[in-house]
């Protein structure tokens, strides 16, 4: 089975090989274990980019394959980050507090220890008590479970409500966007118990491993992210290559026909929506310890829209396209906003990329939508043997699937 699956998906093997090569090369060039050509901050950037690739895969599954333009997947990503962040924050603070209380003449009671940790964590936001949602924060296993469960359950509840009432298309997009907005506004409140606008910080310091240099920690996370991306890729490729994937594409192309064929469209959508939310959560849990801080601004609606942009530019409906889009655009963004791109002097005006990058991104995004709906991934069609049958009519883009322009007009 595995053999035949890989044989049917040669791109998977190529992708995995490329990913492995990339990881090894970065490791060899890194400051932590290699020659020091790649700085630790860039290793972190690369590790984070891999996580973005993973969340882009989950976005591609819901959008590129099932036609649900979810503007909420970055919220699931952020929730995953919050869940792991709670444990990191709690454990790190506990270590500090325990060592500082060790000198006290009277040993601290469990309550005093708890209060001291709470004061440390919530002191900056003017509180000194653990909210209920931190109940499991002392257990790594439980918080890891929550990384999957919390986004999953939110997606399940939201999806069940939305798909049940047959909300689809742009309505669903706007609704998911509203959900993201509500979640980020909620987290912005100090009363949410997740430190409001400040969020959870200092996540790059792993509890108990304070002596390990960040150069090494960043590599561990790079490997972890690469592994997660590889597994996520294989899983996604496997899912879409089977019968499940066929039904999804059917739903994307004509939901009503699939429903008439007797498939429970809602269940398929719900399973996919929930599954990809879990995947996004895992990506987030790997991303934020590398970023070092998570706060509500991360899950603002704009972030989810950017996610859609990456996938669109990379090429929807093909998994490697999503990864390429996420990697390409986010790295390019960081290059342009990092002030390293050379300014262009036009004589009468100097183009500073810090100012103009977003304009270029926005317009190139319009151009991709208009003229290259297949995105960067479409370039691979030119070199691969995949030739589209001539169906007498321009492609409407993956959204409309089998629908050709002529049919659409009718």
């Amino acid at each position, binding site marked *: 089975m595995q053999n035949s699956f890989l044989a049917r998906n040669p791109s998977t093997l190529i992708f995995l090989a490329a990913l492995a090569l990339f990881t090894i090369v970065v490791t060899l060039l890194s400051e932590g274990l290699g020659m020091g050509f790649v700085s630790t901050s860039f290793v972190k950037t690369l590790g984070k980019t891999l996580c973005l690739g993973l969340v882009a895969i989950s976005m591609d599954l819901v959008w590129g394959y099932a036609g649900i333009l979810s503007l909420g997947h970055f919220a699931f990503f952020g929730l995953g980050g919050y869940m792991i962040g709670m444990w990191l924050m709690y454990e790190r603070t506990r270590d500090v507090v325990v060592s500082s209380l060790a000198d006290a003449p009277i040993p*601290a009671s469990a309550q*005093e220890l708890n209060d001291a940790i709470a004061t440390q964590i919530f002191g900056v936001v003017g509180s000194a008590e653990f909210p209920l949602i931190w109940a499991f924060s002392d257990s790594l296993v439980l918080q890891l479970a929550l990384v999957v469960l919390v986004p999953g359950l939110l997606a399940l509840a939201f999806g069940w409500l939305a798909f049940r009432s047959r909300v689809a298309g742009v309505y669903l997009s706007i609704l998911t966007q509203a959900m993201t*907005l509500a979640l980020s506004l909620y987290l912005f409140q100090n009363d949410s118990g997740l430190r409001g606008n400040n969020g959870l910080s200092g996540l790059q310091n792993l509890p108990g491993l304070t002596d390990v240099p960040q150069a090494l920690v960043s590599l561990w996370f790079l490997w972890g992210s690469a592994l997660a991306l590889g597994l996520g890729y294989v899983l996604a490729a496997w899912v879409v290559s089977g019968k499940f994937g066929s039904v999804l594409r059917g739903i994307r192309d004509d939901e009503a026909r699939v429903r008439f064929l007797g498939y429970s469209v809602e269940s398929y959508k719900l399973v996919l929506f929930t599954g990809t939310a879990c995947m996004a959560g895992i990506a987030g849990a790997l991303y934020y310890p590398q970023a070092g801080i998570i706060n509500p601004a991360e899950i603002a609606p*704009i972030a989810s829209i950017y996610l859609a942009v990456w996938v669109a530019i990379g090429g929807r409906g093909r998994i490697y396209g999503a990864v390429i889009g996420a990697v390409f655009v986010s790295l390019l963004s960081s290059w342009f906003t990092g002030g390293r791109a050379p300014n262009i002097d036009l004589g009468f005006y100097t183009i500073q990329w810090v100012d103009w990058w977003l304009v270029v991104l926005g317009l190139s995004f319009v151009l991709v939508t208009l003229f290259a709906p297949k995105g960067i991934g479409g370039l691979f069609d030119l070199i691969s043997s995949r030739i589209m049958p001539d169906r007498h009519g321009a492609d409407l*883009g993956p959204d409309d699937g089998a629908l050709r322009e002529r049919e659409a007009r009718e």
Partner: protein
Amino acid sequence: MIRLFLTGLFVLLNCSLAVAQSTSVQTPMQAVLQEQSELIVKSSRKSIAPAIDAITESGLPQAQDVLQAWQGKDMWLRKADGLFFRAEKLDSKTYKLFDFDSGERVGEAPKSELKQLKPNSGVRALIGVALVQFQLNDPDPERRRAALVSIERNPSESLLAPLRASITTESDEGLKEMKLRAERLLTISFGADEAARIEAIEYISGDLGVDARATLNRLLASKTDVFTDAPPDNVNVARRLEVGDAISSAEAYQLLVDRQLVPPLVSQNDIRLTLAQHVTDGKVGGVSVAALTEAVQREKAYGALVAEGLAEPAPTEAEVNAALSQHIFAELYDEPSAAVTQAAEKAMQSTSVHVGLNQAADLALDGISLASIYFLAAIGLAITFGVMGVINMAHGEFIMMGAYTGYVVQQVVPNHTISIIVAIPLAFAVTFAAGVAMERLVIRWLYNRPLETLLATFGVSIALQQLAKNIFGTQARPLTAPAWLDGAWVLNDVVSISYIRIAIFVLALGFLAIFLFIMKRTRLGLETRAVTQNPGMAASMGINPNRVNMLTFGLGSGIAGVAGVAIGLFAKVTSELGSDYIVQSFMTVVVGGVGNIWGTLFGAAMIGFMQKGIEWLNPSNTLAAQTFMIIFIIIFIQFRPRGIIALKGRAAGD
């Protein structure tokens, strides 16, 4: 006595300053000011009173002028000789100086040689109070009004007599009314005659004025007290407080501790600190330190310390309860007269009912106002999204473009009224053009791909937003309303709404009318509806769908631009102005029901009132209100996926 002293001082000063001051002679008011010079220069509310009193009690006719100049920050100090003058600006560096006593111009001085006296608002208020007695009978009605405002801000007993004396001579009817009212309020607070006070209280019963309520509340101020027996007769008891009911036992016990009637409670932290002081050989009070993580062990160790006399005994719960039951807690009015407080309570009750009703009205006005803002922001979308079905994520940026147009016009046309009149059509034109361009260049290629329209217009949105930042910078830009829109329509002290919000409401209504007119009565409206419902059929009837789509989209965008001018007037003009409204605007249209302008109206009304309602329930956290509102909308859409007004039949499209 003071006169005598002053004259002495005057002579003294004259002698001492004679050398430094050959041109001017020390005059009486200058002498008073010089005597208080230190306090005047220090200018602190806490210490200024003697200086103000000295000026008022000098009996000099120019006292009023001095106080007024001082209050208006027109009093300056000449650094060279420390004399005070009234100064008027000649140009940016030089000032004309006027002597207070003669009122005559005594010369000019460069600014660097002068020091302006800047009484802070607290000092200015005190000067205002001192001025009351002069201004109450001033020929200028504005000054008389200022005096009344001073009385309202700082009511005091000493003002009652001059106020009463000035009422009979008041010629202006409006001012007389105000004076009578101020007199009643002062009588309530400071009157000597109980019957007169009660009469005044009954008179203002139900009055919504903040000053009236303030007067009553001040009268009803009370404090909690504790007695071992029944309260004595000479106090005015508001009510008895039952422990555990009206007053918590912790509060009550703290009150007893404050009166030093009982020993204080010992907190866990106190126990820990005390124990830490008595550690010997790893043990405290016979308990090993390692065991002290348990509260029980700590109490045991502490008990041992108490037994040894090393620590204060901690009162037990039974002792606390016993102490509480032995005392009577009561709230006492500061005002000794029971009859007055009773009347005030009664008046307050009737006022509270009025206030409650008016607050509800005010909340409703706020709700209407917010609804009209949402409606205005969403009405353009109601056309592009509701009628044409085009998702335009750049709608917010069209609003922003409108606002910036208003700003640019105001830079060119300084008159605010004219600039707004110019800005509104211009904003429409600019965003109409932008809308048409976008429709031609982007959207028309994507009519069959709604999700991609969403993404492409989003690309336009981020590009436009960044473009605005590059052009106008990131600072917020001022867009100032014309003076006739300043201020608020004040119904009473509770209900008021700013004119600018009323203007937005009117504008929203106007657009509703325009929308209805265009859609129902014009050829464009007919064609738009036809093209939307069935483009193929419309085309075969000779309608050019391209042209109609273009014009309709331009219309929707143009309206967004005008909305931008209005929103910029009441809020801010920044490049992020649009993105603040975009999600809410889509919500408004979706909740109301796509394709129906009345739906959008209901949607905006529902969201506006809802948000204000939640804000009212939780006044300390506006963010929570927004969160809960969105969650409510999400749930609402589950039950009415097509919005409040759902289109039926063929109009529904799919």
